[in-house]
C-alpha cells in the first residue's frame, strides 16, 4: 500500500509515524513545498529572535526519516486526481497513491484591505514569510502588526526583539478578548505595554499606503491616525489552506469537509489538521480546530482510520497554552471569553496577584468544576483533566490545589490566597 501525505506539519508527520508504527510494509511518501524536514511552526518566532536556529526546531533528527522509511519529497502539489488516485507535483511529476492524506495547514487571513498585496506586507505563517521578514528587517524602522491574536503578539515581540518600534492594531476593545475572560485579557494588555510595544485597542485598519515604490510607506487607521510604517504584518487569524483541492471533486466549505472519521467524500482521501473541517461538530466546538495538539490527534486518528479502524475523532477535553511575552497562559476545559462571561451560566473563582503577573480562574457550574484559566501559573494537565471529567466539587478542588501545582520547585504557592478569594466570593 502506498500512503501519500500532502503537508509535513504536525498532522502529516504524526500520520506518517502512525502508519509506520502499525504497518511496517506500507510505502509512505511525505510531501511538502515549504521545507525538506518537519519543523515546529510554533517555534518560528524563536528562530527570528535568535533563541534557536532553524535546525534546532526540527522535532526529529534528520536520520529519523530514513530509519523509519518515510520518503520525503520536496515540492508543491498542484493537482489531485481523486478518481485516478494520482497527484501532480510542481505541475510536472505524477505520483500514484492508494490512500491520500491532505494536511496542508492554514494560510493567513486577508480581508481585502487596500494595499494588502504591497511589498513588505505579509502574514506570519511559513518559513518563507519569516525569511522575507528577515531580509526586510534592515530597512524597517517602524512595523505595524494588524490583529490581536496569538500570532500577532508573537510578531510584535519578534520585531521588538530586533529593536524595531512596533504598533499593534487590535480591533477589539482588549487583547484577544474573543478567547480570554476580561480580567486576563487586561493583564495581557498591561504586559504588551510594559514591553514597550505601542498597543492600540479598538483600532481598525483602513488601508495600507504605497510609498511610491510598490512598498508600504504608511498605514491609515479607521477614523484615526496615519502611521509611518515600513512593514505591515497581517495576523488577523488564519483559514484552512485548501488550494490543493481546486479542480478536484473533493468537497470543501471553509475547509476540506470530512466526517467523524476524518474521511472526505472520497473514501480513500482523508484530511487532518488545520485544513480539515469536520461536518458534525461535537458539543460546542468549532468545526475547524487550528492548534498544534488537535493536528497531532487528527493526524493519528486519520492514519488509524486509513488502516481500517473507522474510529470517531474525539479530541478529548479542550486545553491549550501560549506565552504572551513574559506571561505564560494555560487553559483546561470550559472557560468563556470576555463577551460570554456573564451569559454562560458559569460561576467563577478568580484570584489575581497584586503584581499582575499571576492569576487563577476556576470555572464551576452547579458546584462542579468545569474549567481552569491560568496566567503565570502552571497546573498539571492530567489532574485538571481528571477533576473536570469527574465533575469534582469546587470545595474539593480548592482543598487539593497543591495536587494540581506544576510550577517549578520553590515557587511561591498561592493556594491560601485563592481559597480566601473563593470564601469571599461565595459566602
Amino acid at each position, binding site marked *: 500500500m502506498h500512503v501519500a501525505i500532502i503537508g509535513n506539519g*504536525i498532522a502529516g508527520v504524526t500520520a506518517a509515524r502512525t502508519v509506520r508504527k502499525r504497518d511496517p510494509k506500507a510505502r509512505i511518501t511525505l510531501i511538502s*513545498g*515549504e*521545507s*525538506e*524536514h518537519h519543523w*515546529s511552526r*510554533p*517555534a518560528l518566532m*524563536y528562530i527570528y*529572535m*535568535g*533563541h*534557536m*536556529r*532553524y*535546525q*534546532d*526546531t*526540527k*522535532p526529529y*533528527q534528520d*536520520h529519523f526519516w530514513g530509519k523509519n522509511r518515510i520518503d520525503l519529497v*520536496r*515540492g*508543491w502539489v*498542484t493537482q489531485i486526481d481523486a478518481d485516478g488516485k494520482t497527484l501532480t507535483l510542481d505541475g510536472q511529476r505524477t505520483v500514484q497513491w492508494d490512500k491520500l492524506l491532505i494536511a496542508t495547514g492554514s494560510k493567513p487571513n486577508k480581508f481585502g484591505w487596500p494595499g494588502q498585496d504591497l511589498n513588505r506586507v505579509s502574514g506570519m505563517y511559513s*518559513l*518563507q514569510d519569516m*525569511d522575507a521578514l*528577515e531580509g526586510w*528587517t*534592515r530597512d524597517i524602522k517602524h512595523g505595524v502588526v494588524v490583529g490581536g491574536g496569538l500570532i500577532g503578539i508573537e510578531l510584535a515581540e519578534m520585531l521588538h*526583539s*530586533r529593536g524595531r518600534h512596533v504598533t499593534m492594531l487590535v480591533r477589539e476593545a482588549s487583547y484577544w478578548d474573543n478567547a480570554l475572560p476580561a480580567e486576563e485579557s487586561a493583564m495581557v494588555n498591561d504586559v504588551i505595554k*510594559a*514591553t514597550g510595544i505601542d498597543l492600540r485597542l479598538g483600532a481598525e485598519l483602513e488601508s495600507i499606503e504605497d510609498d511610491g515604490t510598490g512598498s508600504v510607506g504608511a498605514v491609515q487607521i479607521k477614523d484615526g491616525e496615519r502611521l509611518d510604517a515600513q512593514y505591515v504584518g497581517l495576523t488577523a487569524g488564519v483559514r484552512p489552506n485548501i*488550494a490543493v483541492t481546486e479542480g478536484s471533486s473533493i468537497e470543501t466549505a471553509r475547509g476540506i469537509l470530512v466526517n467523524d472519521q476524518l474521511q472526505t467524500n472520497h473514501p480513500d482521501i482523508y484530511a487532518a489538521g488545520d485544513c480539515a473541517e469536520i461536518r458534525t461538530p461535537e458539543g460546542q466546538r468549532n468545526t475547524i480546530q487550528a492548534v*498544534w*495538539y488537535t493536528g*497531532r490527534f487528527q493526524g493519528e486518528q486519520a492514519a488509524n482510520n486509513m488502516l481500517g479502524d473507522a474510529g470517531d475523532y474525539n479530541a478529548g477535553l479542550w*486545553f491549550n*497554552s501560549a*506565552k504572551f*511575552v*513574559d506571561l*505564560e497562559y*494555560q487553559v483546561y476545559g470550559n472557560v468563556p471569553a470576555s463577551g460570554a462571561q456573564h451569559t454562560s451560566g458559569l460561576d467563577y473563582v478568580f484570584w489575581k496577584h497584586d503584581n499582575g503577573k499571576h492569576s487563577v480562574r476556576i470555572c464551576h457550574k452547579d458546584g462542579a468544576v468545569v474549567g481552569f484559566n491560568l496566567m503565570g501559573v*502552571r497546573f*498539571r*494537565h*492530567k489532574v485538571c*483533566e481528571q477533576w473536570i471529567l469527574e465533575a469534582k466539587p469546587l470545595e474539593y478542588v480548592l482543598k487539593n490545589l497543591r495536587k494540581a501545582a*506544576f*510550577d*517549578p*520547585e*520553590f*515557587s*511561591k504557592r498561592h493556594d491560601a490566597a485563592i481559597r480566601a478569594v473563593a470564601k469571599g466570593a461565595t459566602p
Partner: protein
Amino acid sequence: MSASVHLDALPPQRVGTEPRSLTVFEKVCLALVSFGSLLVFLSLLSPNTLSTYTSYWAAPALTMGTIVLGSLGYIFSAYMGTTPGIKHNGMFFSSMSNRGVWGWMAGVAMTSFYVILYWHSSTLAGAIALVEPISYALSGKHADQWFLYGFLYTVAVVVMGSRMLMKYRHSRYQIIRTLSVMFFQLGFGFLIPNILKALNQPEFYFTYFWPLKPEYLLPWSYGEEQLVTQGAVIVTGLTMGRAMLLWGAMMSVIAVPTLTYFFGKRWYCSWVCGCGGLAETLGDPYRQLSDNSDTAWKVERWMIHSVLLAITVITGLLWINAATGNAILGNASGLYSKTYGFFIGAAFSGVIGVGFYPILGSRVWCRFGCPQAAILGMFQRFFSRFRITTNGGQCISCGNCSTYCEMGIDVRAYAQRGENIVRASCVGCGVCSEVCPRGVLKLENGSFGDRFKNAAKPFAAIADAFRGKS
C-alpha cells in the same frame, strides 16, 4: 504557489540584533573593567611594578577590585533594562555565544590560560604578585599559581553567578540553586582550604571526594601511610588527615547513594560541585552549544564510563600496591597518580572542559569525563526518585529545552511523546523547565514507582530480549 526557498541550505548566521546603546553608568563600569584588565596586563609584563608604586593593598584593589566591581555594575544595569523572564534574544546571532570570532577568541584565551597555568606558570608571576596580599591575609602563605587560579575561579563563579541571579530573578529555583553554588565555591572551594593551610593542615576540599579526587581515598595523601599496612581505618587518636579520609569515604559510600536517591544527582552537580558551579555560571552563555545528537550521547556514554573504570582500577591497584609493600607497582605508584592527574585532572577537566566552553558548550567535562558524574548518573537512572515530569499533551515540540540543555539531552524527544525524562546525565539545572514556553517540564522528586510513567524502563530492552521480543 510561490517558488520554494531552500531553507535547509541557508547559512546559520542571520542579521544581528541592533547594538544596545549603553547608559553612562554602564560606560563607567566597562571603563573600570578595561582599566583593571590593562593594569593586569602591564603587571604580567613587569611584575611588582604596581605594588612598588602604590601601597600593599592598592595593587589587588586597582586590578581585581575594579574588574569585579565594573562587571557587577554592568551586569546589574544591563539586566535591569529588561523585564524579568527568559531573554535569549540574539543568542545565535552573537559572535560570542555562537562560535563566532569572539567565541573562538575567548576559547583560545581560556585554553591558553590553562596551558600557561599548568606548564608555564612563571609567566604568571606578575598576576600572582597582584593576589599576594589576599593569599597572605587568608593563609599566611605566599601566593602561588594555584592560589591565583583558585581566586580567579571563585571570582568567576561569584561574578557570573550574580549574572545568573539577575537573569533568572523571576525564578526561585534558579536563585536558590545559584546562591548554593556560589556559597560552596566561596566557602568550601576557596576560604576553607586556605584557612586549613593557615592551620598547617592538608589543603582539603570537603565538597570533593572519590572518584573525582582519587587521592582522597589514598591515605598516604594525608601522610597516613601506616593506615594501609595496619589495615584499620579508624584508629584511636583521630588526626585531621584521618578525619578527612573518613569524611571522603563516607561521602562516597553513604552520601552519594542516599542524597541521589532522594534528590537526583543535582544535589551535587548543580548545587554543590565546583566544576558544576563554574559551568552553571561562567558557562551559562554557552550552554546552547552542547551537541544534542544521538552520536554525541553514544560517545558520552563510552567515554565517561571508561574514565570511571580506569579510576577504579587505578585506585584498586594503588591500594594493593601499598598493602603489599610496593610489591606490584614498585615505587611507580606516584607516577600513576601523576599520569592520571595530568590526563584527566589537567588536560581534560581544565584545558578542554573549561577552555572549550565557547566551542563545545559548558559541560564537556561533566558529560564526557567526570567519573563522579558517572556514578551519580547510575544511581539517578536506576535508583532515584528524581525525574522531569512532562505535562500531558502541552508540548509544541519547539526545541527550546533541547537547545538550552547543557548536557546535550534531547529533552524534546521525550516531552513531545508525553514521557517523563529519566536520564543518567541530567544535572537538574532546571533550565529546560525555565525556557519551555508552554510550562511543560517540572523537575521533581516524586515517588520511586511512578517515575517511568510512559518512559522506557532501564533494562527493558534487555528484559525484552530475554523474553524473545525485539
